[in-house]
């Protein structure tokens, strides 16, 4: 026997089978029961909500041997022929392909003739909004003088395209999208009857993506059961090509924690798992929408989620500020658009992640449109420059992340991180480590800038080695192999060697060798690089008490909000391990204010020169 898809097999045969359209079913049932039949009905509503199905049920009710009746028998020749689509008196017309005046004139001619089998001749015109104006005009004439034995049922997804003159002569029924509970209930019923092993969260996911269309929901269930014996949420996600909810929840966690490294790692994992990043952007935006709506008091938000996932949604609604969510939704949308043009499709996503998790997208103008002044040409120019800078930064960070993930399993993330400590926390830490001296805000910014520069150096470290090899500076490369960059002070890249590699350090640290390194690094980094070296012991002194940068923890959202509000209070948690401490040390402002990282960064960004230093005592 030929396979029949679920949605066809489970198409309602009785009015009582129709789900989620009680207002329609009740009125039509009463009309059939009382024999008060209108000569024209207009069924409007989104696709898959039951318009054509109810039209056929109405036809059955009218032409059943017991009819007009609200409960057609389903057994009589008329009912069975209608169910098979073979009834002479039920004419189904596709308005999209029979849209001209000639077709309507033909109908005007035909309606004069009495029905051949039943009591009524029923014309069901689907997609009626596709008719031409002339065709509507012809149709209107039939509606103005309808023969008593004719009933028209017009179905449309776009009621506003129906001329008011036609619509006002029809009894109109608005079909609504199915609510989650109704959709899940019906899907569960069908799954049980069909013996499909399906989990509740899978049903919830199906209902969510069916978006109120039961036909679509049954279609997804049909595909999923062909995919695996047990239909789980992961199976449904695979069928739909969507990102599993857990990943989206993790993204919300990343936002709440302001954890750039984790965010970038998530993007990388999604790519490695072959997930469509554009779909991820859409899913993440939808999820954040639910968080936003729930936070705004809309209890229906996320109604299709399981209890456990709903609890997570509620937690996110508590943790995430509405402004950040709005900003995130905009940034994700913008990233989606940018992906079409980006050379590397992941770049816009990573850029969005960085914008949203770092100093707060709003402060950085990440949401451009949202925060830019209305007249925005200048803002647009600023955005473009900002975008270019961010792209460059992302490129560097991406390489850094890859490098760290690959080799620098550089030891477990120091102390205090716990299981949620980002794997590449060493990257994140320097970038947000607070400065020791006043003013706190400037110090934080400086630390951020220094962290960026260090990240850039790390990102180009492999290139440096490769270039040394290519230029046959093999000896320099051999010495350099024992050291690694640990900080950037002003323009100076600090290369640290282990205590027992003093020979390598002193061998490398000659004017000629430094120049070789600087000549390679300058074009890569884009600033006037100087190279300095140090032994690990020298740098360790006095670094043990510096606070660590923000790491994901339950307090992280508060910290993020504080950061967003500009007080720079990002430090928390236990004392750092070696990496964090070193980074903090590197970022600490030197005694000479001219060498202060913030001053150096300001010079780099804005140009100009220092014409004097004025001290102000507190």
């Amino acid at each position, binding site marked *: 026997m030929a396979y029949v898809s679920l949605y066809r097999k489970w198409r309602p045969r009785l009015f009582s089978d129709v789900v989620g359209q009680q207002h329609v079913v*009740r009125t039509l049932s*009463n009309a059939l029961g009382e024999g008060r039949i209108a000569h024209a009905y207009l069924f409007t*509503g*989104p696709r898959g909500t039951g318009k054509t199905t109810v039209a056929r049920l109405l036809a059955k009710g009218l032409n059943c041997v017991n009819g007009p009746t609200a409960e057609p028998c389903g057994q009589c020749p008329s009912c069975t022929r209608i169910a098979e689509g073979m009834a002479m008196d039920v004419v189904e017309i596709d308005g999209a392909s029979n849209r001209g005046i000639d077709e309507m004139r033909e109908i005007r001619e035909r309606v004069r003739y009495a029905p051949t089998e039943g009591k009524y001749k029923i014309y069901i015109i689907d997609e009626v909004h596709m008719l031409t104006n002339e065709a509507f005009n012809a149709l209107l004439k039939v509606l103005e003088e309808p023969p008593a034995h004719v009933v028209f049922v017009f179905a449309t997804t776009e009621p*506003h395209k129906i001329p008011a003159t036609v*619509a*006002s002569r029809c009894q109109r029924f608005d079909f609504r999208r199915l609510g989650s509970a109704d959709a899940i209930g019906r899907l569960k019923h069908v799954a049980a009857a069909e013996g499909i092993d399906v989990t509740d969260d899978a049903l919830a996911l199906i209902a969510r993506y069916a978006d109120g269309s039961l036909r679509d929901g049954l279609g997804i269930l049909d595909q999923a059961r062909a995919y695996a014996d047990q239909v789980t949420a992961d199976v449904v996600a695979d069928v739909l090509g969507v990102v599993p909810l857990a990943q989206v929840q993790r993204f919300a966690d990343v936002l709440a924690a302001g954890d750039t490294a984790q965010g970038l790692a998530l993007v990388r994992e999604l790519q490695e798992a072959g997930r469509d990043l554009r779909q991820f952007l859409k899913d993440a935006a939808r999820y954040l*929408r639910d968080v936003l709506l729930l936070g*705004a008091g809309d209890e229906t938000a996320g109604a299709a989620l399981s209890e456990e996932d709903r609890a997570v949604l509620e937690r996110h609604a508590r943790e995430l500020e509405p402004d950040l969510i709005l900003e995130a939704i905009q940034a994700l949308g913008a990233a989606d658009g940018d992906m079409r043009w980006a050379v590397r499709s992941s770049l816009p996503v990573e850029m969005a992640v960085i914008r949203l998790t770092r100093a707060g997208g709003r402060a950085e103008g990440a949401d451009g449109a949202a925060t830019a002044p209305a007249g925005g040409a200048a803002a647009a120019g600023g955005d473009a420059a900002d975008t270019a800078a961010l792209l460059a930064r992302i490129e560097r960070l991406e390489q850094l992340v890859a490098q760290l993930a690959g080799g620098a399993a550089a030891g477990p993330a120091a102390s205090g991180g716990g299981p949620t400590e980002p794997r590449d926390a060493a990257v994140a830490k320097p970038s947000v480590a607070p400065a020791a001296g006043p003013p706190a805000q400037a110090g934080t910014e400086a630390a951020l800038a220094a962290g960026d520069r260090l990240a850039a150096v790390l990102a180009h470290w492999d290139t440096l080695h490769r270039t040394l090899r290519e230029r046959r500076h093999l000896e320099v490369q051999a010495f350099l192999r024992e050291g690694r960059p640990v900080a950037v002070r002003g323009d100076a890249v600090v290369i640290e060697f282990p205590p027992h590699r003093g020979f390598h350090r002193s061998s490398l640290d000659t004017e000629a060798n430094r120049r070789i390194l600087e000549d390679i690094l300058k074009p890569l980094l884009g600033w006037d690089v100087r190279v300095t070296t140090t032994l690990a012991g020298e740098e360790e002194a006095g670094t043990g008490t510096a606070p660590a940068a923000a790491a994901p923890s339950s307090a992280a959202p508060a910290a993020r909000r504080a950061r967003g509000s500009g007080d720079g209070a990002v430090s928390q948690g236990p004392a750092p391990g070696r990496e964090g401490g070193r980074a903090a040390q590197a970022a600490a402002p030197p005694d000479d204010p001219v060498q202060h990282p913030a001053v150096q960064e300001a010079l780099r960004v804005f140009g100009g020169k220092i014409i004097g230093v004025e001290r102000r005592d507190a």
Partner: protein
Amino acid sequence: MSGTMADLKRMLAAGPPAGLHLLLGDDELARDEACRLIEKAVLEAEGGGDRMVVYGDEAEPDEIAVAAGTGSLFGFRRLVMVRRFDAMPAAAQERLLPVLTDLPAGVTVVLLAKSLDKRMKAAKALLAAARVWEFSLPQPAQLPAWVAQRAAELGVRLQGDAARTLIDMVGTSPLALQTELEKLALYAAGRPVTAEAVRDAASVAIPHAAELAVFQMAEAVAEGRTKEALSILRDLLAVGEYPLVILSLIGRQYRLILTACGLPAGASPAALARALGIPQAPARRVAAQARALGAEGAALGLRRVLEADMAIKKGLEPRLVLETLVVALSAMNKHAMGKY
């Protein structure tokens, strides 16, 4: 001199109508009902008769002239109805004048039109020769009573604000109101009909739907009632309303608010209505929103709408954009209302 529906009923009570009748006016429902009354009177009168319906925009004058110029073959009377007579070219109307102004006994001709151009020769002659029945739309103030009366005739017991709610949803077209009342009668099946039942079962008039609902939504947004605004938005989307239509109407609302911001503080409701181009009641509400938001707030709202427009056109999911827009505007306005 034209007659009313009551006059027509009185005339028909005296016997089947004869001669030329001109049914004019914007009230399609009343014209149709008058037509049916005449038809019934003619065809059900002793001896019976036949009926012919033609349309002014497609019938040849000769076809009408032949039908109107000869008596019935099957009975004592003949009824010729010409719908959309005003769509017939003036020259064709003139050609019919000799027949229409001198109908044979037993022939009734009914011409239906919204209006006739009284400057034209044919119109002048017809208005002079015919019994004219004019059906204008009820005045807005008369509508609630009209709805209540029609509901009673259908056995519908409207309660509380049900009539007002129905008019708000359906608009002022008697034909649309009657259709919805017939549906409500079936929905209620003898039970009293409350405003809530009307909202559940009645269909908002298509050209009117988004406008009305968006106005309500904009009000909820303006007063920081996020939940309600989201609920209305969801209803609109649930019935398949176009997101860009909704968005454009939200934008319109903010333009109205911005316009109201520029009007003098003590402007009368009539002056407000004139300036805004909307009726007085909504104009007053717009003025209140303008006071709460201020020009700056309204401009910001308009900018948010523009951003949402761009976001949709750039491919962001429209539903998501609209929902976030509503939350953003609502949050902004809640703050403004607090200040106000």
